[in-house]
C-alpha cells in the first residue's frame, strides 16, 4: 500500500542515486510490516483500554467510599456540613480514610475540628468509624497537632503519646 505523494522531477531527488530517491510507491514487503504494526497497535490499544476501565472502576470505588465517608461523618457528628476535608487511601492499600470537619459552624478549618478514622466496607451507605481525634483551628491534619484521640487510634501511630 502506498499513499505517498509523488515526488517532483529534478532537484536533489533527481541527482541522488536510485536507492536514495523519493518514492512514488512504498517498497515491497510493507504487508508484513503492516501486519506487525497492526498487531502491536491492537495490543497497545488493549492495554490502554484495560488501564482506562481499571482507572474508572478505581475512581468509582473511591467516589463511593467518599460518599459513604461523608455520610458517616455527618451521621456521627449530627452536623450537615458540606465542606469537610477527606484524606483517602486512593490506591487500595488500606480502606482507612480520615474525614475532618468543624465541631461548630464556621468557615472550613476555622473552628476546632473533629476527625474520624473510617474503615471497612460500605453498609447501608455508611462505613464504621473506629476512632478519631481533634485538631485546633487553622491547622492541617498533621500528627503533631492531634489531641483527644479516642477509639483504636489511641493505640496506634496516628496520635502523639
Amino acid at each position, binding site marked *: 500500500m502506498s499513499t505517498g*505523494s509523488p515526488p517532483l522531477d529534478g532537484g536533489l531527488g533527481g541527482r541522488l542515486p536510485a536507492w536514495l*530517491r*523519493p518514492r512514488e510507491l512504498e517498497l515491497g514487503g510493507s504487508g508484513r510490516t503492516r501486519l506487525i504494526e497492526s498487531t502491536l497497535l491492537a495490543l497497545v490499544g488493549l492495554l*490502554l483500554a484495560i*488501564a482506562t476501565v481499571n482507572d474508572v472502576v478505581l*475512581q468509582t470505588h473511591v467516589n463511593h467510599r467518599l*460518599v459513604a465517608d*461523608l455520610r458517616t461523618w455527618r451521621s456521627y457528628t449530627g452536623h450537615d456540613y458540606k465542606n469537610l476535608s477527606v484524606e483517602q487511601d*486512593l490506591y487500595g492499600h488500606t480502606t482507612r480514610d480520615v474525614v475532618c470537619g468543624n465541631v461548630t459552624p464556621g468557615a472550613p478549618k476555622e473552628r476546632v475540628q473533629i476527625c474520624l478514622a473510617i474503615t471497612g466496607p460500605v453498609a447501608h451507605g455508611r462505613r464504621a468509624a473506629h476512632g478519631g481525634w481533634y485538631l485546633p483551628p487553622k491547622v492541617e491534619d498533621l500528627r503533631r497537632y492531634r489531641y483527644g484521640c479516642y477509639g483504636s487510634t489511641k493505640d496506634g501511630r496516628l496520635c502523639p503519646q
Partner: protein
Amino acid sequence: MSVAAQSVRGQAGVRSERWAPALAGLLALLLLAATAEIVLDGAVGHSPLVPKSPEIAGWLQGVGERLGFRVFLIAVLVFTAAYAGLLALARRTETRVLSKRSAIVLIGALHLVVFAGPILLSTDVFSYIAYARMGVEHGLNPYLNGPSSIAGDPVYTYVGHDWRHVATAYGPFYTLLSYPLAPLGVTGAVWAMKLEALLASAGTLALTWRCARARQLDPVWAILVVGANPLYVIYALGGAHNDLVMLLAMMGAVSLTLARPSSRGREGAAAAVIVAGALVKATVAALLPFMIVSRRRLAPIVGALAALGVGAVIGYAAFGVHGIDVVAALNRDAAFVSTDSFANEIAHLFGKPGVFPIDHDLLKAGLVVIVLHLLWRTWRGYDWIAASGWTLLAISVTSTWLLAWYILWPLPLAVLTRDRRLLVATFAIQGLFILHQITPLLAPVS
C-alpha cells in the same frame, strides 16, 4: 442470492436511504442541543466546569441552570454518540446524507454557539492574556516571569493557580500575536482570543476541505470529522486554545505540499510554515522530518532554515535568548503529570500511585523508537502525512501531561490519509479519554 432476496434487500436499502437524511438531521439537532445545553448552563456561572471569568456571557443567563458534572457529562456523551452516528451515516449510505451546505451550516452553528458562550473547562486563555499583558502593559518578559509578577493586574485573578508562577511555554510568534490584544482590557482580550480561535478553526477546516479534495477524498466527510468532533468543539474551541492556531499552520503547510503543480517554492514555503507553527506551539515541528525525508529535496530544508533564522532573530529581539529556548520549555512541561494521561492510568493498573521519573524516560525512549520506525517507513515510501499523524498521536499517548485538546492534533491529518488505522486509532484514544471522564456520572459526590 435469489432474485427475491435481492429485491427485499434492495427495498430495505431504498427505505434506509430515504430515512438517512432525516436521521442525519436529527443527529445534527442533537449535536446542537448538547452544545447549547453546555453553553447556556455554563453561562449561569458558579460551575466547576466554567473557570472564574469576566462577565462575557451574562446575556445568556436566565435560560439555563448551573452546569454540574452530571449534565455536562451527559451532554458530552450525547454529543459523542450523535457525532459517531452522523459519521457512520455519512460513510455508509450511497447518497449524501448531509449536503456540503448542511455540513457547513451545522459546523458553523456549533462554532457560533460555543463562541457566544463562556470560556469552558480551562483557564489557559487567561494565561495567554496574562503573558501578553506582562509584556505590553508591564514591560516584563513572559519567558522569564510567571503571571504572579503582575499580581495587581486585573487578569491575574483569573489565571489558574497551577500556572501563576510559570513562565510561558508558547513560542515567540504566538506571544507576539497575542500582544496587540493586551490593551483591549481583560474582557476585550477574552473576546479577541475567542475570535482568534474561531477564525483559526474556520481556516483549519477550509484547509482540511482543500487538502481532502486534493487527495480525492470526500471533503464533506473530512470537515465533519474535524469540525463536529466533541473534543474540538467543546474543549478546544470552548477554551479558545491556541492549539487551533497551531493546527491552522499545520494544515497550511500540508495544503501547500498537496497543491498542484508542485514547486520548490511551495515546498520551501510549506516547511517555513511548519517552523512558523512551531514558533506558536512547538509540537507541530514533528511534521518537518517526515516532510523532508519524503521529499528529499533541498527546498524544504532551505525553507525551514530560513524560517528558523527569521524566527530566531525576531524571538531574540523581542524576548532575548529565553524566547527561543524552546527545548527548556518542553523539558519543563514534559515533567508535568495529569490524571487523564495514559501513563498515569497504566501506573495505577500496575498498583503504583502515579508516574515515577523512570517512567518519563521509558516513555521518551518509546516515543523515539516510534518516530524512528515512522521515519524508516517514510523513507521507504509511506505517506509522510500519515507518519506525521501517527507521531502526533504517539506524542499525546506517551505524554504524562495529556489534555483533551492534545488528542486533536492528529485528527486533521488522519482524515487525509488512506491508512484508515490512523483515524480509527485517533477515535479510539479520544473515546478512551471521554470514557475516563465519566466517573462523576457513575458515582456522584455530594
